[in-house]
C-alpha cells in the first residue's frame, strides 16, 4: 500500500479519478451508446484532450533534452491555415483523396517548422526559449498571411471527421492521439532513443564525449514536436470547420508544459515519462470540463484551475511530501537542542 501511495503518479491519478467521479455524478450522460458509438462526458473529455495530448507528447521529448518549445501554438495555426486554404480551393471539398493529400502537405509544413526550431537550437546554438520565441511570434503572422487575415471556413466532411468522427465506437481524434502515444512509446522505449535523449538532457557535455550525436537527436525531437503540433492544429481546425489564425492553439504551449510537469518530467531535462504526460494532459482537459459541469462562475475558472495545479505540483514535490507526511513518523532519538551562536 505504501508503495502505491509513494508512486509519483498516485496523487495526479487520484485527482483525475475524483474529478471524473464528480462529472459522472453531475452529468446526465457520462458514458452511453448512441448512434452506434460511445457518447457522453467521458468521451467528450477524451476527444477534447487529443490536441493537448499530441502537443504535450512532443513537448515531453523536447523538455527531456533540456529544451522547450514556445512555438507550438503558432505551428498549430499555420498547419490549420494551410489545410483550410487548400481545402477551400478544392472543387469537391468532400474528395477523400485530396483531403488526405492536403493533410499530408500541412504536416510536412509543420515538420519543416520543427526543423527550423531544431536547427536554431542545435546548430546555431540559440537558447531554446529564445529560438522558439521567434516562431511563436512570427508564426502567427505567417498564419495570418496565409489566410489573408480572414477566417477561412470549409465544408469538408472528410476533414471534419478528424475532430468529430467516430471509428470502432471511439472518437477519431482520440484514436489519433492514442496512436501518437503508442508511436512515441515505441520510438523511445523500444529503440535506444529514450536512453540517448535522457543522456543528452542529463549532461550534454558527457553525452558528446560518450559519442552521442546530440545535435542530430536534438533536431529530431523538435521535428517530431513540429509534426505533432501540426496534427493537433488540424484536429483543432477541423473541430471548428475553419482556420482561425489568431486563436488557434493560443497559449497551448503553457498547458502542454504544465501537462509535462504534472507527469513528473523535470524542466531541466533528463528522465521523462510519456504516460505521466498523457495523464497530465487528460487532467487538464478534465479540469476544463469539470469547471463548467459543477457550475463554477466563468470569472473564477482560472483561479480554480490554478488551485488544482498548485495542489498537484505540491503533491509531486518530495520535500513537501516529506514535510507533511514526515510529521506522522517517529522522531529520531536525539532531542532538538538550540545551536549556540
Amino acid at each position, binding site marked *: 500500500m505504501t508503495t502505491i501511495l509513494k508512486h509519483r503518479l498516485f496523487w495526479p491519478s487520484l485527482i483525475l479519478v475524483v474529478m471524473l467521479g464528480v462529472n459522472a455524478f453531475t452529468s446526465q450522460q457520462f458514458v452511453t451508446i448512441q448512434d452506434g458509438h460511445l457518447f457522453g462526458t467521458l468521451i467528450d473529455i477524451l476527444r477534447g484532450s487529443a490536441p493537448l495530448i499530441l502537443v504535450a507528447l512532443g513537448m515531453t521529448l523536447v523538455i527531456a533534452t533540456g529544451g522547450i518549445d514556445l512555438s507550438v501554438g503558432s505551428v498549430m495555426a499555420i498547419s490549420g491555415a494551410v489545410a483550410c486554404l487548400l481545402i477551400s480551393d478544392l472543387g469537391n471539398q468532400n474528395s477523400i483523396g485530396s483531403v488526405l493529400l492536403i493533410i499530408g502537405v500541412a504536416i510536412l509544413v509543420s515538420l519543416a517548422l520543427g526543423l527550423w526550431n531544431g536547427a536554431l537550437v542545435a546548430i546555431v546554438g540559440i537558447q531554446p526559449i529564445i529560438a522558439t520565441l521567434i516562431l511563436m511570434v512570427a508564426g502567427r503572422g505567417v498564419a495570418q498571411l496565409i489566410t489573408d487575415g480572414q477566417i477561412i471556413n470549409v465544408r469538408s466532411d472528410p476533414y471534419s471527421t478528424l475532430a468529430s468522427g467516430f471509428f470502432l465506437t471511439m472518437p477519431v481524434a482520440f484514436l489519433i492521439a492514442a496512436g501518437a502515444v503508442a508511436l512515441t512509446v515505441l520510438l523511445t522505449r*523500444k*529503440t*535506444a532513443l529514450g536512453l540517448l535523449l535522457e*543522456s543528452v538532457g542529463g*549532461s550534454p557535455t*558527457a553525452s558528446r564525449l*560518450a559519442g*552521442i550525436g546530440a545535435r542530430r537527436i536534438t533536431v529530431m525531437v523538435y521535428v517530431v514536436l513540429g509534426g505533432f503540433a501540426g496534427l493537433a492544429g488540424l484536429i483543432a481546425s477541423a473541430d471548428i470547420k475553419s482556420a482561425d489564425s489568431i486563436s488557434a492553439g493560443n497559449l497551448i504551449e503553457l498547458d502542454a508544459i504544465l501537462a509535462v510537469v504534472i507527469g513528473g518530467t523535470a524542466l531541466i531535462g533528463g528522465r521523462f515519462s510519456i504516460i505521466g504526460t498523457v495523464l497530465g494532459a487528460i487532467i487538464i482537459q478534465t479540469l476544463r470540463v469539470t469547471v463548467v459541469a459543477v457550475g463554477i462562475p466563468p470569472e473564477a475558472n482560472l483561479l480554480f484551475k490554478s488551485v488544482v495545479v498548485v495542489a498537484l505540483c505540491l503533491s509531486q514535490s518530495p520535500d513537501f511530501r516529506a514535510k507533511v507526511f514526515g510529521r506522522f513518523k517517529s522522531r529520531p532519538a536525539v532531542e532538538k537542542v538550540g545551536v*549556540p551562536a
Partner: protein
Amino acid sequence: MGEQSPVLEMTGIRKVFPGVVALDGVDFRLFPGEVHALMGENGAGKSTLIKTLTGVYEIDGGDIKLGGRPVRISGPLQAQQAGVSTVYQEVNLCTNLSVAENIFIGREPRRFGKIQWGKMRQRAAELLARLDLDLDVSAPLSSFSLAIQQMVAIARAIDVDARVLILDEPTSSLDSAEVEQLFRVMRRLKESGVAILFVSHFLDQIYEISDRLTILRNGRLISEHRIEELSQVQLVEKMIGKELAALEDLEDKAQSNRERAAEAKPVLEAKGLGRAGAIAPYDLTIHEGEVVGLAGLLGSGRTELARLLFGADKADSGEVLVDGKRINLRDPQVAMKHRIAFSSENRRTEGIIGELSVRENIILALQAARGWTRPIPRKKQDEIVDKYIKALQIRPADPERPVRNLSGGNQQKVLLARWLITEPRLLIIDEPTRGIDVGAKAEIQRLVAELSDGGMAVLFVSAELEEVLRLSHKIAVLRDRRLVEELENTADVDADRIMQTIASGATS
C-alpha cells in the same frame, strides 16, 4: 594537548541510508589548534561523517558536542553559525560572480539594505592578503585557475570566524607550489586556534601537515592515532584492512613488457598535432600493448594533448594516423569509429550522467556507437553489466541504482566499464585515480596493466608521477603546454629524472 578539552566531540554517530548503514557508531574528536586527518577508502564514510557535521545530513543516532555543548545541526547555515566551515572537494562557488561576491555571498556588508560594494571589495582583498594572495577581487572567479578558486573558497570559509574548518580534498587539483601555499595558510590558522579537519588521498601531504589522524573503514571507526605513532604502511593496511603486496609487483611487470611493446605496430600516430592556446604541435606514436604515460604539472597541457587525440577538441594543425591512414578527427564519434576511447578527468561533469542508472551509464557509449535504431537487447545489457560489475568490483553491485549515488572510485569504474565494452584499441584515460582511495587505485592500475598485456594501447594521464612510472612503458613529459621529452621507462628513469625535465624543460 591531552589535557585540553576538544572543540568538537562526536560520539556514536549513526547514519543510515536506504539499504546501507553509512556510519555505525563512529566517534570523532577535534582539538583546537590541530590538523586532524580523516582517513579511509572511498565508501568508508568520510564524506558522510563530514556531511553530518556540516548539516547536509541529519544523524540517525549519536551526539555531537561543540565546545562542550550538545548541538543538533540541521542545516548548512546552522553549521556555519556554530562555527563549522567547509571547503568541499569540488569547488562550490559561482564562477560567474566576482571573487569578492563569492567570498561575501549571503552576508554582504550592507547599509540601509544596500550592498556596500567598496567595503566588500576592500574586505575581500584584506582577507586574501592573509592567504598571501593578491587578486583583482572584482574580476569574475572564472578568470582564475582552479587552484586560485580553491583558495577563494578557503578565504570564504575562514572569514565566518570558523572554530572548525573542514577541508575535503583541497589539494587534489593543486600543484606542489600551491599545496605549499595552502599548507602555510593552514599552519597560520592552526596557530590561531582553529581546528582543521583535513581529508586527502596524498599520504605524503597527510604526514607533512597533520598532528593526528582517525581511520574509518566500512562506516566504522578503526582507530585514532597521533601521526608519529603510525607508519605509512601501517596506515594503508588499516585503511584497506589487508596487506597490499600486489601493488609492488606491478612496476616490475611494466618493465618486463617494455621490449615486447617496442616491436608492436603503431595504433595511432600524431604528427605535428596542436591547438593554439592549448597545446603546441607535438608528435606521438602509441603502439599496440603499450602504455604511454603523460607527466607534467597541472596546466602543462596533459589533458589538452589527450583531448586532441579523441577529437574532444579540434586540432588546428597537424594530422592523426590510425593504422598508418590519415583520419579526420572532427568529433568524438569519428574517434570511436576507429575504436579510440577517452575517459575525461572531470568525472562528474564530462563522465557520468548522474541521474541515469549504473547499467545505462555502462552501455551508453556502446549504444551511441550502434545508433539509436539498434538498441542493445535488455538481456544482453544485463549480461554485459553484470559481468563488468563483477570484474571491476563496482560497489554497490546494483545495476539499477542512479550512478550519482556511488562513490567517486566506483563512478570511475563505471566509466572504465563504459569504454571497455566498446573494445577499444586505444584507451585514453585522464586522471582515472584522482580523488579515489588506495584500494580502488590499485585495482585500476592493475586493470590498466592487464589491458595492455592483452594488446590494448593505453594513454595514461596522471598528476602522480609514481603512478605514471609504475605503469608506463614510455613517458611523454610536458611543460608549459609543450611536449618536451619522450622517455623510455628504463630502470634508470625515476621520479627525480622526470622532475628535472619538468623543471628545466631540457631536451636531451
